[in-house]
């Protein structure tokens, strides 16, 4: 039975909007030009491939359903209370193979000693073998050979695939020689080279170890991607209408409207953001706790909290965009084509929509892509503080939060933190590189 979460709807709406925008851009020279410049930048193409991989994961993770329970043939179909996503189906192996507690990457034995009852009845305190990690090995001495063999096997497949990719770039190069396909091909190849061994190993090992309750860290990291993307994109959905409307109105109408809007955002800016968010999220939590009947599943409850976090983040971070747009609109409204429109008696709303909005759109685009990485990082910080997403939602923030106490342990449990850090770093770096390319493409001052 499919389950429709609110954030799923928003995510797919965003995908539709992005597709619509792309078609609109193709038809309008003034938009197609800057985007063309963006895609001609090697850094943008390389980071786009990385972002694309993240987006693919996130989208697969945004199709939810409740699996049917095995029933007798004549019984009415029943569904599990657990909500799964399409991604979970693909990662069923990873999801199902829980250990008892921590284990290091690729380990065959647990990280904590336990009393083990030996076949001869004696009890021994030792590191027990893992239930799944390396369970196929009869003799642990074969471990190194086994890992190497599987890794090489995976690597061979990915080398083959990379080769196909490179061949593909050659063909594309002939069709559109102006776009740096090589950069995209190389970064896709690199991704494949990493993914091949990881996939090959993950069928029998925990590639990145397990966490405190024995969940596969690799799985947790993949599941966290969606949360980051939702925070980064859905928030802008809230932020944009407010920021654009208030910013352009302040700049265009001036006078008391400008004063009021400026007072609002200066006031909002002087309240510590974390405080405001914490207060709002805690209020939300109280509401959720008091109305458990509204939410059939735990996932839906957690999802609402995620959505609410996006709204709160959006409502507290529109001020930067509004300030930028106010300045630009102030400048634009003095320009002669706006005055010419006044001389024609064109209405204010129409001038805002037809003249101001298209001419500030480059600022909106730049702000959107630049904000994305900031929001992803903000989520991690908020979840770490404990006012972010629901603890049951997988996110980089919750991963870091769970891993922080283990940093002081001897020997240290480093893999959960390192994984969250690496995944988030790659995402934010790719987003920042792409944002730079977008700014270079759209900012008229950068254009040489």
């Amino acid at each position, binding site marked *: 039975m499919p389950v429709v979460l609110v954030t799923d709807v928003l995510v797919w709406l965003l995908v539709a909007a992005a597709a619509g925008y792309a078609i609109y851009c193709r038809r309008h020279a*003034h938009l197609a030009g800057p985007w063309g410049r963006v895609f001609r930048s090697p850094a943008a193409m390389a980071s786009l491939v990385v972002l694309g991989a993240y987006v693919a994961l996130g989208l697969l993770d945004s199709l939810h359903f409740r699996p049917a329970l095995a029933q007798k043939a004549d019984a009415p179909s029943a569904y599990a209370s657990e909500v799964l996503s399409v991604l979970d189906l693909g990662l069923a192996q990873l999801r199902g193979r829980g250990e008892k507690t921590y284990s290091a990457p690729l380990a065959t034995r647990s990280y904590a000693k336990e009393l083990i009852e030996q076949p001869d009845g004696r009890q021994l305190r030792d590191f027990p073998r893992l239930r799944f990690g390396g369970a196929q090995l009869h003799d642990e001495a074969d471990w190194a050979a086994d890992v190497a063999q599987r890794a090489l096997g995976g690597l061979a497949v990915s080398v083959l695939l990379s080769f196909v990719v490179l061949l593909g770039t050659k063909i594309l190069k002939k069709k559109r020689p102006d776009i740096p396909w090589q950069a995209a091909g190389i970064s896709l190849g690199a991704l494949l080279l990493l993914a091949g061994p990881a996939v090959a190993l993950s069928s029998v090992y925990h590639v990145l170890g397990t966490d405190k309750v024995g969940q596969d860290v690799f799985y947790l990291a993949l599941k966290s991607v969606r949360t980051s993307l939702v925070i980064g994109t859905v928030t802008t959905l809230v932020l944009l209408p407010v920021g654009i409307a208030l910013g352009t109105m302040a700049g265009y109408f001036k006078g008391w409207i400008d004063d009021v809007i400026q007072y609002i955002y200066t006031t909002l800016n002087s309240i510590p953001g974390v405080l405001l968010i914490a207060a709002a999220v805690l209020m939300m939590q109280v509401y959720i706790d008091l109305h458990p009947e509204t939410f059939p599943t735990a996932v839906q409850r957690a999802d609402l909290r995620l959505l609410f976090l996006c709204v709160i983040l959006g409502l507290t971070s529109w001020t930067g965009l509004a300030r930028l747009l106010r300045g630009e609109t102030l400048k634009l409204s003095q320009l002669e084509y706006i005055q*010419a*429109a006044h*001389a*024609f*008696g064109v209405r204010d709303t129409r001038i805002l929509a037809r003249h101001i909005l298209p001419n500030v759109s480059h600022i909106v685009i730049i702000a959107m892509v630049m904000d994305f990485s900031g929001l992803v990082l903000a989520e991690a910080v908020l979840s770490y503080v404990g006012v972010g997403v629901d603890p049951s939602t997988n996110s980089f923030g919750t991963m870091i939060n769970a891993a922080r106490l283990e940093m002081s342990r001897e020997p240290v449990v480093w893999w959960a933190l390192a994984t969250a850090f690496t995944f988030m770093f790659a995402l934010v770096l790719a987003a920042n590189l792409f944002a730079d390319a977008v700014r270079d493409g759209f900012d008229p001052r950068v254009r040489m």
Partner: protein
Amino acid sequence: MSGSVLEVTDLKTHLDTARGELRAVDGVDIELRKGECFALVGESGSGKSMAALSIMRLLPETGRIAGGRVLLDGNDLMALPEAAMRAVRGRRVAMIFQEPATALNPVLTVGRQIAEVIERHTALAGDAVRKRTLELLDAVGIPDAVRRCEEYPFQLSGGLKQRVMIAAALAAEPEVLIADEPTTALDVTIQAQILDLLAKLQAERAMAILLITHDMGIVARMAQRVAVMYAGEIVEVAGRDAFFGAPQHPYAQKLFQALPSPEKRGAELSVIAGQVPPLTGTFDGCRFVERCDFAYLRCRREAPELIAIPGDRAAQRLVRCHLREQGLAPAPQGAPAAAQEQGRLLALNSAPVLAELENLGVHFPIRKGLFKRTVGQVKAVDGVSLAIRPGRTLALVGESGCGKTTAGKALLRLIPATAGRVAFAGRDLAALTRRQLREGRGAMQIIFQDPYASLDPRMRIADVLAEGMISLGIGRDAKDRMYRMAELLEQVGLPLEALSRYPHEFSGGQRQRIAIARALAVEPKLIVCDEPTSALDVSVQAQILNLLKSLQDRLGLAYLFITHNISIVEYLAHEVAVMYLGRIVERGTVEEVLGSPQHPYTEALLSAVPAVDGRRSIIRLAGELPSPANPPAGCHFHPRCPKAMPECRAAYPEAVQLGGSRSVSCVLYRASKAASSS
């Protein structure tokens, strides 16, 4: 040749652009002699500024010098290492730029900036530097140098800033001064002051000046020799008198014919068809061939050399044209057609008034303090009365900051008037409701100065033209409007396929045509033209003026033509109103006002305009336009007026009617009127 300070041979400068390598300067030879002023004239994009920057080796990052030599007293500047070049810049060759506002560092005092140059290039130090700085400020005519020395650039007016720039350039007594459009950003009366100063300094210090300009009037006033640049090449070199007497190259001839002047009234200005060819390609023939009236087969096949004109004494004249090489006589200059509009004019004089301003005032409050209390008023327009008749052009002239643009916008109610009455076709605009005003917008339109800022870059031309029609409900449906747009484009001389293109695909002149078509789309009766040609080159200006004139003849439009360019007024306008500090000081027909100006300000303004032909005696105005926030008591003009009397300080003089249609606001005429009436 002996006596030459700076010798540029075969200078080539290339710029890297998105469309490939642009040969901005393509084999230029310049010889600058000791103590002479050599003018480099050309339209925008001809490469004259790039040539100057190449001499200084100050090219933008995308540019590089591809070849040639620049000999300064026999030393090749191109061969110097950068460190040695820095010692040349400012010390031996100095440069002043067009925009004094951006050429000075806003966070350093004026004195400090001049002292910097002195310390860098001379052995002076300490008090000697300060003394020298004060001397220099004195030399460039800055009053109260001791005080000014400690001031920051924002405290100085444009004219004073340019004087400071000149002082800094002179600090190390260079042999060569390169002046790149030194007065383009300044008003005519200030321009006259700066040009005087340059001429005086040149004579005193035997300094050579390389003057870069697009204004033939400035050339006529300043230069001893002239070179005309076109598309990266010099096409003609001549002594000033010979050049202005009979320009030889067809391009130079065309430039003169395109200048508006009173003799050409009623006739079409000669235009140069087409545009400067892109400099990214190579040329087989003459670069001017596509636009030349005399081109023949050889011009397309073979690039002409810069040759001395046979028979001209001392080989002073060089020209790049096949015709001249063969010794063919220069083509006759187009004779101005006789004025034939007198009769029509008289008939129109009695037509009912279309738009009338009565005591119009536009005051902007000055707010200060926490509660933004109004502490004063900037009286941008302060009691202006005008009447515009259908089919006629009223020119509003004055220096920048005098309020002429504000008056024009207040007439359209783009800026609310704070006092007085604006009537259009007999209706008081202030009494109209917002809705009525919006419906009436179509009758009055405006054309702006900057064709790059006046079209929305994100709209296709079809949308630009349709906007007003949709807003004002002109045309029944899209098809009807389409038909009308096609008609409009034909009227302004643009092809039909322009409709589906974006503004950036058009040149400045074409954009101005689109702006005119946009205004015409709503069938106006009056168009306010706010300096519509001041951002355009002379040849393009001629096209736009011709267009405006023919539209007036065909459609009976009235123009309020706001400008500071007197020669356009002489060519196009029927009536003139001269504005100074928010008020009209003199008003009358073109013949009356420009023929025999009565108000001292009009006289000074007219005399300050550098003329191509002959020289008028210049009436020098001291100082600059005062602030409209704090105008001088009495007659606003009296602090600068050469004929000021004690009573000028007492009260603002009333307008006095002199003869048929002329009125003057000056104390001088109150006396004469009183005398004549008694």
